[in-house]
């Protein structure tokens, strides 16, 4: 039997014991500290409302942007506001 491999096998078992103990102790601490109603109080999420892109609306959006672009580029509107 390869001694190094045998030692590493035991190291792996030690890792198993440590992780199992950590998980069990932490879960037990949570269970004893917090009320179950709080722990199971999660509800389903809610979708953000800001993004709504449909292929059919993309062309319309592009047309809108194209119409707005000249007035932004000329800077004429800004000048009027300053005046």
């Amino acid at each position, binding site marked *: *039997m*390869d001694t190094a*491999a*045998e030692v*590493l*096998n035991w190291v*792996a*078992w030690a*890792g*198993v014991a440590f*992780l*199992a103990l*950590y*998980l069990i102790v*932490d*879960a037990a601490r*949570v269970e004893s500290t*917090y009320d*179950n109603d*709080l*722990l*199971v*109080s*999660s*509800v*389903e*999420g*809610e*979708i*953000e*409302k*800001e*993004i*709504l*892109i*449909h*292929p*059919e609306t993309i062309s319309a959006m592009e047309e809108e942007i194209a119409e707005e672009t000249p007035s932004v580029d000329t800077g004429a509107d800004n000048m009027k506001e300053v005046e």
Partner: protein
Amino acid sequence: MATSEAAATPQAAPTVRRLSLLRVLGPMHVWALGVGIVLVGEFMGWNFTVAKGGVFGALVACWFAGILYSCVAMIDSEVSSTVASAGGQYAQMKHIVGPLAAFVMGLFLIFEYCMLASADAIVIGAIMAELNANFSPLPWVILSLLFLTWLNYRGVHLSLTFNFVITAIAFMTIIILLFGGEFWNPGKIFQTSELFAVQPDGVDPKAPYGWLGFLAALQFGIWYYLGIEGTCQTAEECRSVPRALPIGTMSGLITLLIAATITWFVGTSLVDWVTLGESAFPLYDAALNTGRQWLVVILFIGTFLSCLASANGCINDASRAWFAMGRDQFVPRFFGGVHPRYRTPYRAILFLVPITLGFGYTGLLDQVITFSIISGLLMYAIMPINMIRFRRLYPMGSIPRGYVHPFHPAPSIVLLLFCIGTFIAIYFGYWKNLIAAMAFYILVSVWFIFRRYKIVDRSKLYTMPWPRPKGY
């Protein structure tokens, strides 16, 4: 069904303290979850397509399954970017089709991912034993599972960031094998022409069994992509669901299409079709055939990391599905618990550890993997119904969508047809498994209808703030 009553159900009142999962994930994490689960299929499993259909049969299966999964990814991206809930396809079914479909879908997910995780862990043990015959597989199998459980327990951001790193490394090893084999210099290392040529005994490696072989290869073609649909499970934990889920899922699928095609080319150009069709670690064997030791080491690392990434993703997904079912009381409400500090579904994560280990040590690993694949395929077969019904109940503009897939209902119809084709292929090879799996799911459905659903608090099932569906 989201009724008006459900829509009117108040969300968390300001005075009520609630625990929820953390919204910390971005597209990178979604990519890591999807590709991480799947990439192991490039390192093992896909090569059985070669045994069934020859090298061209394997390529047909690769791209056929690619179309199937493109439909899955498009459908999932649209519905999941709308149903922002843990449980993914389970939650979609609950809101769009109904409780029984949701329950069955939840079971499909849990069996698919738990069984896949157990197979991954067992392969990790086998890899360790391959490294040194004196390594005992058992402690390494349990250690890998417990380490990944610990990561998932400590937080989804930590576990999926880890998954991103190891998945990216595993993916790069496939690219390195392509370049390390000097693909631009055919005949030097890659022996494509020689390996594809008709053999002296008259057998043509390209299609040894003709079109029937192509059909038979389909059952293993899904190995190239099996699990990409798991990205939906993160829906409740994404910072921006409409952005992260479609980008993460689609970029993941593109990555897998590239990886699958490279894997096919590298595998079939370095290993003869008979050896390749029986190999346990095809890419590793391909690296061995290059005669370059550094490539062998790199592919060994890639194989190991892909197993680890897959098991990690599977633990994440199975626990979210079980958590979501617990939250709806489809299984005991206890499993809907959230860790107050790490904000993870810690009870679901811990509960599934012994079950995953148990699957692995039934001694029936091939049966476990087959059951996992059949569960996944049953899930894909229901998805087109879900998608068509979703568009019918909630037409465009009725609810916010993060992504809208094009050409509806073509992807749904294509997916359904491809699923039927793959079921026929599975029936040829594993008809007993297919019938046993379907009988199992019918039995648990009967149990759900006559026992479990009677104690479900139906007033709390639907909390999405959606309008009344069309026609109701």
